[in-house]
């Protein structure tokens, strides 16, 4: 003990030369003491000293003491003090930050904290131990345990996430801490949860399941909503983590009516001018930023359309959209908050007719009152406004027009000549003004905005062709398209040209009438071909995009050409491509955009992604148009080209044969179609029939099932007792009885039948038997007969023998001459009698 104290003194003393050596030694001794001392007090002292060393001699304490500290966590868990000290020490050695007093500064790049974290979590149950200490209410234990987890998570976030996810009730234990009355713990667990939920959908869902949204809204309310401090921001960040990209949690959020709870947070009291106007504190700006991010997470264009639509509906219904629009129109809102709010409104209304209508109806509190959309567009074409704000207005306007035929029509309508010259500023006028302003960014914004009025709307494409512009006094008015083409040729600002080309491509695609108008304009095609055939500046991004768009526009003029402009029929434009540009160059140019990073970036999200004005070149919907048309256009151009060649090379092949071939083909196909139609009709009929049959069968089955049930019940009742029968189930029983009776009768009939059969069978058998007996008797008799016959023969032989003897004797007698007659007569009698008796 004496030695320890002296060494401690020397460490804390002022002899820097020796400290390192002494420090390492001392740590070794302390660790030894911590491990081997049997007295809790000693261990506690050692632990306290280690904690004191763990900042300055972090490497030593970590390298030597890790196991000992772990051992403390396991063995001494009943003593809050030593546990707290051990956890604090572990906190220090795993700290992701560097300490100023640390001796071993050279290893700052080695991430000591991370390495020790790795060592610590090698034991599979280490994190489990720390999680268990969270359940201890004692502040000395709970808080350092929480801090240690935070450090571990900061160092090895993926590993710790997985460990916590699979440890029983791991997430739940952390969630419980959100209700801790000690604010420091609640706030720290908020920070921990933000880290924990990052990028792990499973944890996000469990946290949400553990009533996170309720807890978060409670804390936000306690802390003063949008005006609250950084804790509110932390809460919102956690909420954002739980919602962003997690469809299940978004659904839960919507179903749990939490969207409604967002509304009051956005209801920012109107700034009263004379009340001392301190504007927005930086914290409030941060809070509102997070709040709108939460809203946007629910209606992100990348989320499933059905879920987004449901959230959008709720947001309008619960007044959230109104509150957002109020912020748009409020004064004194910082530009970045305004920008994000505009982006949020954009996504809340995107593709939702009622919400779009709602925004169309919002009026700005200006004199005279103007529609909010007009006020927004005024900012978009005003070069004094911040770039990001102008971008957000474009996005909002695009979302307003997205799948909104009414909005599209209304916009084009404002450009068409009307009876009464409306003095008020309209969206169409603003866009035209922007289109022809000297600010190239305004040109781009306006052209792109206008192009969105034409998406999937051919009638507006045709309506827009009617738009006339009055240029200089005394000159005839020009069409909007003429003006666009003229601007395209005259201007020298690429951004403006790209905007115009985006508009023209959208305008002419799928609309032969617009193609016709475009081709009819003087020098329109000539300009495009000239631009495409120029070789200069191939590496320049803007130049590539320009060429690419020109190629697309020419391609559209081929693909959607109805041959109504004699100078530029499909064939002629194709020839032009071949002769003036060349096929390869054309194909190369049209695919040129897709090779650029800006194309894939723009294609990813509908919101303009440019950071500064010069980057704003492509539009999301345009990229989609290009993507869908690129293939068909190249094919169409190549086909037309091949046709030309075929016609040139196979001129001698008479057209008639070709036509007749096609006719035959068509006829064949017609027949086939008819046959298929018939087959289809037949099959559908059959299907219907089958369905009817199935239904009949089903009803029959269910009927039978019911009967079966009734019978079973009846049977059971019979079993229960006869007395009950009479009262309730008489009818059933009678029925049943009858069935049984018929069954019995049936059975009796059958039995009689069988008896009859049996009797017959028996008779047959008897006859057979007697027959057999007779046969055997017959045999016996026959045998007897044979025997008798034999006897008879023997007797006959004997007789003849005796006859001959008699005659012999007679002769002898005659010779002797003595009494013949008497003997003769008796002998004759004998021979007559004998055969008769034998028969």
């Amino acid at each position: 003990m004496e030695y320890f104290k002296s060494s401690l003194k020397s460490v804390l003393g002022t002899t820097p030369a020796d400290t390192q050596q002494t420090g390492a030694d001392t740590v070794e001794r302390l660790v030894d003491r911590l491990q081997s001392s049997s007295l809790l007090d000693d261990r506690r002292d050692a632990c306290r000293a280690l904690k004191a060393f763990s900042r300055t001699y972090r490497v030593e304490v970590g390298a030597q003491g890790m196991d000992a500290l772990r051992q403390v966590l396991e063995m001494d868990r009943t003593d809050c003090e030593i546990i707290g000290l051990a956890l604090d020490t572990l906190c220090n050695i795993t700290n992701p930050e560097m300490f100023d007093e640390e001796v071993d500064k050279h290893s700052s790049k080695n991430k000591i904290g991370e390495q020790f974290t790795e060592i610590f979590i090698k034991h599979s149950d280490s994190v489990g131990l720390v999680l268990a200490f969270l359940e201890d209410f004692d502040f000395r234990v709970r808080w350092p345990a929480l801090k240690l987890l935070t450090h571990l998570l900061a160092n090895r976030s993926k590993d710790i996430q997985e460990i916590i996810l699979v440890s029983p009730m791991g997430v739940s234990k952390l969630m419980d801490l959100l209700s801790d009355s000690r604010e420091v713990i609640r706030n720290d667990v908020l920070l921990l949860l933000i880290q924990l939920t990052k990028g792990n959908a499973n944890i996000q869902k469990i946290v949400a399941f553990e009533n996170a949204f309720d807890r978060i809204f409670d804390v936000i309310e306690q802390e003063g909503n949008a005006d609250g401090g950084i804790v509110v921001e932390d809460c919102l960040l956690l909420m954002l983590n739980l919602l962003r990209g997690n469809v299940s949690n978004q659904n839960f959020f919507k179903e749990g009516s939490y969207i409604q709870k967002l509304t009051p947070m956005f209801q920012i009291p109107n700034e009263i001018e004379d009340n001392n106007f301190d504007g927005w504190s930086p914290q409030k700006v941060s809070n509102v930023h997070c709040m709108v991010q939460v809203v946007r997470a629910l209606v992100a264009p990348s989320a499933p359309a059905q879920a987004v639509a449901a959230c959008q509906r709720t947001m309008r219904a619960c007044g959230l959209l109104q509150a957002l629009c109020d912020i748009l129109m409020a004064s004194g809102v910082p530009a970045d908050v305004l920008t994000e709010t505009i982006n949020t409104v954009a996504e809340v209304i995107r593709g939702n007719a009622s919400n779009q209508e709602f925004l169309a109806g919002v009026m700005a509190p200006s004199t005279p009152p103007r529609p909010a959309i007009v006020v927004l567009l005024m900012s978009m074409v005003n070069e004094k406004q911040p770039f990001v704000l102008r971008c957000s207005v474009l996005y909002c306007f695009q979302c307003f027009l997205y799948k909104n035929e009414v909005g599209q029509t209304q916009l084009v309508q404002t450009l068409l000549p009307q009876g009464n010259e409306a003095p008020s500023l309209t969206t169409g006028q603003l866009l035209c003004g922007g289109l022809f302003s000297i600010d190239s960014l305004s040109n781009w914004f306006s052209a792109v905005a206008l192009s969105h009025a034409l998406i999937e709307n051919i009638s507006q494409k045709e309506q827009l062709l009617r738009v006339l512009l009055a240029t200089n006094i005394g000159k005839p008015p020009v069409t909007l398209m003429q003006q666009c083409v003229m601007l395209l040729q005259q201007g020298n600002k690429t951004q403006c040209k790209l905007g115009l080309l985006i508009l023209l491509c959208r305008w002419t695609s799928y609309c032969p009438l617009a193609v016709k108008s475009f081709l009819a304009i003087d020098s329109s095609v000539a300009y495009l071909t000239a631009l495409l055939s120029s070789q200069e500046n191939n590496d320049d991004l803007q130049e590539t995009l320009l060429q690419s768009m020109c190629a697309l526009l020419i391609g559209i003029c081929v693909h959607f050409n109805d041959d109504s402009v004699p100078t530029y029929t499909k064939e002629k434009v194709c020839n032009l491509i071949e002769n003036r540009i060349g096929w390869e160059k054309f194909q190369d140019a049209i695919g040129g955009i897709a090779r650029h990073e800006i194309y894939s970036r723009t294609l990813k999200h509908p919101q303009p992604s440019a950071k500064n004005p010069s980057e704003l070149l492509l539009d999301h919907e345009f990229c989609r148009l290009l993507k869908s048309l690129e293939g068909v256009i190249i094919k169409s151009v190549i086909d037309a080209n091949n046709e030309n060649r075929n016609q040139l090379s196979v001129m001698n092949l008479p057209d008639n044969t070709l036509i007749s071939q096609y006719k035959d083909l068509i006829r064949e196909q017609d027949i086939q179609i008819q046959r298929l139609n018939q087959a289809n009709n037949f099959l559908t009929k059959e299907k219907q029939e089958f369905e009817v049959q199935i239904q009949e069968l089903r009803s029959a089955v269910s009927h039978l099932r019911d009967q079966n049930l009734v019978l079973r019940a009846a049977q059971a009742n019979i079993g229960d007792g006869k007395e009950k029968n009479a009262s309730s189930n008489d009818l059933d029983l009678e029925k049943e009885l009858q069935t049984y009776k018929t069954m019995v009768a049936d059975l009796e009939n059958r039995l009689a039948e069988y008896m009859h059969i049996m009797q017959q069978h028996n008779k047959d058998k008897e006859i057979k038997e007697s027959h057999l007996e007779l046969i055997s008797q017959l045999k016996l008799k026959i045998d007897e007969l044979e025997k008798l016959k034999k006897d008879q023969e023997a007797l006959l032989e004997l007789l003849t023998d005796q006859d001959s003897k008699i005659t012999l004797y007679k002769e002898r007698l005659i010779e002797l001459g003595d009494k013949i007659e008497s003997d003769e007569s008796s002998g004759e009698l004998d021979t007559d009698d004998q055969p008769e008796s034998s028969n």
Partner: protein
Amino acid sequence: MSYAYLFKYIIIGDTGVGKSCLLLQFTDKRFQPVHDLTIGVEFGARMITIDSKQIKLQIWDTAGQEAFRSITRSYYRGAAGALLVYDITRRETFNHLTTWLEDARQHSNSNMVIMLIGNKSDLDSRREVRREEGEAFAREHGLVFMETSAKTAANVEEAFINTAKEIYEKIQEGVFDINNEANGIKIGPQHSPTSPGGLAGTGGQGSAQGGGCC
């Protein structure tokens, strides 16, 4: 949108017994013959009426695969009701019920109402587990039993609603502490927590969020 009570459910059971289809049939009234494997847990909700009271059911449909077992365990604690599902055409899913039940009992609060569901009753020709066996298992373990078909929707409503009725009765009897949200029950925003009676509340943690528009 307002409700008197909110109950949290979980659906558990072997993979492929039709848990997600049961949920889909209940929330969307449709059947999807080919359903992707559930990853982790998915959420669904619906409003029902019991005793002329609006009750919101929040249902977490869990993945049946063994790999997700440790994740899905986290959902037991906060649930008021569980549908334990097996497939009547696959005996092994019935044989695993004991494991599921042990798991549920171990991790959930003791009052959780468990409903045993023999699903796919439309496939009677391929039946491997007799109805009586399911009944016997339920009786033995004190569960409510029902055979359902997520395909024909037979008994699906009843399964969810009967579970809710059971929970509702337990609330009426005062078995559940409805102020403790860990039980998976929440009182609707406009209903004061004192009305159902018999609650020496532990200080409203969750019930204090009145107001707002719903």
